[in-house]
């Protein structure tokens, strides 16, 4: 490739970000703007027996007070579980839920107004832990009225193939283990923020820190009762998401409603504590898993029973429930396979999608169990894995279609780089290595809301100025999707990246993209962008060929010139543009992406389907202090198969960021609750790794060149987190011979295990 594709490319918005010029949602300010603050519930589960807003309404500066009944239509990112209201109606389900909203001239007036709202609660039975929610209760005690059999089970996802339970009873080598994972949260640095403007033409503009402008657009229309053509959602610069901004949120709907009601611009920015209690992070999880192998170390069966603690509302929970199971079908061949995941409602902030969605915790479990089985059989854990890898171009037992697959190369690379064969099992006590692999979707093949549209459309516009503008709904959340759009257009048209600009994530201007979730953007938007840019080139070539009397296919677009090999035609880009636009002016070409039809016909067959899958293998090196229980992760070798790195700089960045987030969940991060009250809703007590906690990282990008990915590309944003956690767990075993079955791996747990406790 002669253009920027495949070359390390600084982000197109990096200069704006490094100079403080980039505008995030919280940086916007409108004339005559109001501010919104909330009254939040102090009870975890209670009937709202009294709610009197009259005093607040007359508080100086207060312009509007809204309670739940005014916005009664429920919503949710998944159309199958629209179980949330913008503001609690009649009852509250977690401490911190919004009970009333106040819009005022100043933040202080809004805050004071919210404070003097009179509210009384009648507490009802609490369900704080999953076991509480599995018990039968009276109907009036249920968290939601729609759950069945008097229990608070939101979703049971179950798939079984070829009776794994039978195999597990008779197999040569079997392990059955239990694991427990604390809930963790995204902890993006930019708090949620939304501004809504009710325009004079009865349209609504919402600028919001969201990963999913399209789903926000749809849910605003539903809840506010507005036609979709009257709503514009814009995503400005976004300060990190990781799945934590991939739902439509109550504050977004309330802010928009306030703008409709007051006919004034309205702004709402969260405090850090509000970000924590809004959560939507990774589900606290309990896993009971059995894995069996035959005499030769071939995995014969996997069966697992999983309970995930969903908190008070649905969010992505139905998908999470399936992902906990179905994404264990790779990277190993397992033909007898079963899982059941039960997602329960509890009276805590809701959980949802977070980087590596649904698959991170069960991945820890399976990789630790493979390590155990390898030790049981006296096999090298790398060899056991190699023995079981799926090949390229195959189907898994649940009919996930595997295409490109670089997992073997990933494992061979990290194994060689860390000198595994000479060091594993041979390091002094307290010092160890551990290996784990990963597997993840590269975009969900099915849209969240069933429809006949493509999953993304990109428009490329050429005008007299020689500029290409790429119009895409894709949401750059820091992963660099805007830059990839520009790279692709520059590559296809043989022009500099400076010739290409983007208009993105604006539901009035840009064609629909479903959003930045499920690691779908590079694959889907990349393909659509490539098509759009290629069509611009073909259209230009047609005009130039006609005027110059050559064959269009013989025209080469490179280095800002358009020429034939024999140089009978040799035009500058600008000359080519003039010819292409003569008599017609600016034109737009369109590209789209629709996933191929995939998967089986059984119920649940759609879960985990993707047009391609990423693979990876990581090795961690740790030192464990036997006196304090402290674990120091010294170095991590990571190899990730992203198909083709369109921008190696950002692929590396995604892998390194995944190591950071995986390290945090493995070692220190945990949302703690007491009676439903979140106890560590700040960065002092919720410990994400700092620069000092950062291990050395040795990153290798493996390129398996996927046949359907743009230039061969697959995902890199989520897959790399999966192997990080179990590679650390397995390294601790190599160092000190203990199995860590609960995350985070804090010194007290290590010490307790070292002293023989459980």
């Amino acid at each position, binding site marked *: 490739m002669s253009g920027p594709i495949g070359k*390390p490319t*600084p*982000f197109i*918005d*990096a*200069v*704006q*970000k*490094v*100079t*403080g*010029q*980039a*505008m*995030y949602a*919280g*940086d916007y*300010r409108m004339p005559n703007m109001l501010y919104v603050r909330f009254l939040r519930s102090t009870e975890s589960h209670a009937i709202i027996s009294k709610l009197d807003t009259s005093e607040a309404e007359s508080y100086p500066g207060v312009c509007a007070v809204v309670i739940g009944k005014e916005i009664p239509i429920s919503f949710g990112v998944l159309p199958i579980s629209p179980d949330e209201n913008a503001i609690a109606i009649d009852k509250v389900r977690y401490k911190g839920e919004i009970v009333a909203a106040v819009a005022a001239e100043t933040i202080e007036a809004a805050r004071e107004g919210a404070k003097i709202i009179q509210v009384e609660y009648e507490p009802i039975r609490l369900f704080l832990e999953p076991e509480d929610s599995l018990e039968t209760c009276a109907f009036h005690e249920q968290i939601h009225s729609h759950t069945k059999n008097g229990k608070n089970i939101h979703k049971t996802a179950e798939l079984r193939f070829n009776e794994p339970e039978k195999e597990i009873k008779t197999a040569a080598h079997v392990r059955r283990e239990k694991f427990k994972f604390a809930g963790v949260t*995204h*902890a*993006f*640095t*930019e*708090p949620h923020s939304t501004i809504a403007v009710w325009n004079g033409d009865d349209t609504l503009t919402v600028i919001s820190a969201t990963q999913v402008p399209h789903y926000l657009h749809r849910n605003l229309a539903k809840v506010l009762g507005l036609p979709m053509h009257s709503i514009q959602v814009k995503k400005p*610069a*976004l*300060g*990190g*998401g*990781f799945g934590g901004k991939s739902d439509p949120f109550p504050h977004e709907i309330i802010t928009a409603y306030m703008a409709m009601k007051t006919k004034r611009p309205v702004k709402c*920015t969260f*405090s*850090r504590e509000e970000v924590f209690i809004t959560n939507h992070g990774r589900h606290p999880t309990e896993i009971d898993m059995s894995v069996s192998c035959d005499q030769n170390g071939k995995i014969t069966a996997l069966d697992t029973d999983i309970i995930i603690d969903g908190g008070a509302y649905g969010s992505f929970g139905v998908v999470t429930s399936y992902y906990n199971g179905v994404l264990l079908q790779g990277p190993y061949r397992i033909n007898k396979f079963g899982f059941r995941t039960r997602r329960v409602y509890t009276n805590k902030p809701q959980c949802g999608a977070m980087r590596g969605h649904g698959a991170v915790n069960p991945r820890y479990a399976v990789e630790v169990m493979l390590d155990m089985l390898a030790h049981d059989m006296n096999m090298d854990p790398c060899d056991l894995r190699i023995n079981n890898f799926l090949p390229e171009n195959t189907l898994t037992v649940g009919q996930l279609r595997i295409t490109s697959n670089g997992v073997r190369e990933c494992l061979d690379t990290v194994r060689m780089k860390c000198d595994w064969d000479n060091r594993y099992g041979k390091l002094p006590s307290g010092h160890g290595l551990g290996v784990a692999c990963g597997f993840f979707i590269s975009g969900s093949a099915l849209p969240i809301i069933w429809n006949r549209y493509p999953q993304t459309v990109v428009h490329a516009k050429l005008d007299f100025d020689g500029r290409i503008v790429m119009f895409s709904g894709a949401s750059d*959340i*820091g*992963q*660099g999707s805007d830059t990839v759009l520009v790279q692709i257009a520059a590559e296809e048209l043989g022009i500099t990246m400076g010739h290409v600009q983007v208009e993105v994530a604006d539901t009035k201007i840009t064609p629909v993209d479903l959003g930045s979730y499920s690691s779908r953007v590079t694959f889907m938007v990349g393909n659509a962008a490539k098509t759009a840019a290629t069509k611009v080139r073909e259209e230009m070539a047609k005009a130039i060929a006609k005027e110059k009397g050559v064959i269009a296919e013989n025209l080469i677009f490179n280095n800002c010139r358009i020429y034939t090999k024999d140089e009978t035609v040799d035009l500058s880009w600008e000359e080519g543009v003039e010819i292409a636009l003569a008599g017609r002016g600016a034109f737009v070409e369109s590209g789209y992406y629709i996933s191929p039809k995939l998967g089986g016909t059984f119920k649940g067959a759609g879960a985990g389907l993707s047009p391609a899958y990423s693979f990876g293998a990581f090795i961690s090196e740790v030192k464990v202090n036997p006196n304090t229980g402290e674990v120091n992760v010294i170095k991590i070798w990571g190899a990730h198969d992203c198909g083709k790195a369109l921008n190696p*700089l*950002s692929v*590396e*960045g995604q892998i*390194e*960021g*995944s*190591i*950071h*987030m995986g390290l945090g969940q493995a070692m220190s991060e945990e949302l703690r609750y007491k009676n439903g009250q979140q106890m560590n809703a*700040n*960065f*002092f007590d919720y410990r*994400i790794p*700092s*620069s*000092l906690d*950062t291990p050395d*990282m040795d990153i290798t990008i493996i390129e398996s060149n996927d046949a359907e990915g743009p230039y061969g590309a697959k995902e890199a944003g989520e897959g790399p987190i999966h192997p990080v956690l179990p590679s650390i767990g397995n390294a601790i075993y190599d160092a000190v011979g203990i199995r860590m079955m609960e995350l985070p791996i804090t010194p007290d747990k290590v010490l307790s295990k070292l002293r023989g406790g459980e």
Partner: protein
Amino acid sequence: MGLKQIELTVNGFSSPFLVQSDEVLLFTLRERLYLTGTKEGCNQGTCGSCTVLLDGKPVLSCMTPTLRCVGKKIITIENISSGDTLHTVQKYLVEKGGLQCGFCTPGVVMTMVPFLEENPNASREEIKEGLSGNLCRCTGYKKIIDAVENAAEEMRS
């Protein structure tokens, strides 16, 4: 409590302001001066995104009462690069991929610029130490540290 009239010197320019006596500098900068390059990540003194320079020293503007800044020179991210030319630290953050979402980046710049002025020969470990008050959730810090190392090298030569 109540309003106070004060004079502040921000980015080399002095002007009078009416501020609340319990107001913090972050609020003054963002809400009164509309200098939004300084970011509010936590308002609790934990994330470093709001770092600015007070008489050349990095401070967390969310923890700094505005009244304490009277008579001192306040420098924000908006004043670090001159015109078209990025500061060396900024240049390498861009080139080396030392930022993704960019929200923590102004704070990183405002911490690392004075750090390198004081510690021109900082080792990689010392850079990690110097950066430890700035939380970044995207990069895993590696490329930030790489960028600062590169900047230190160029600033030394």
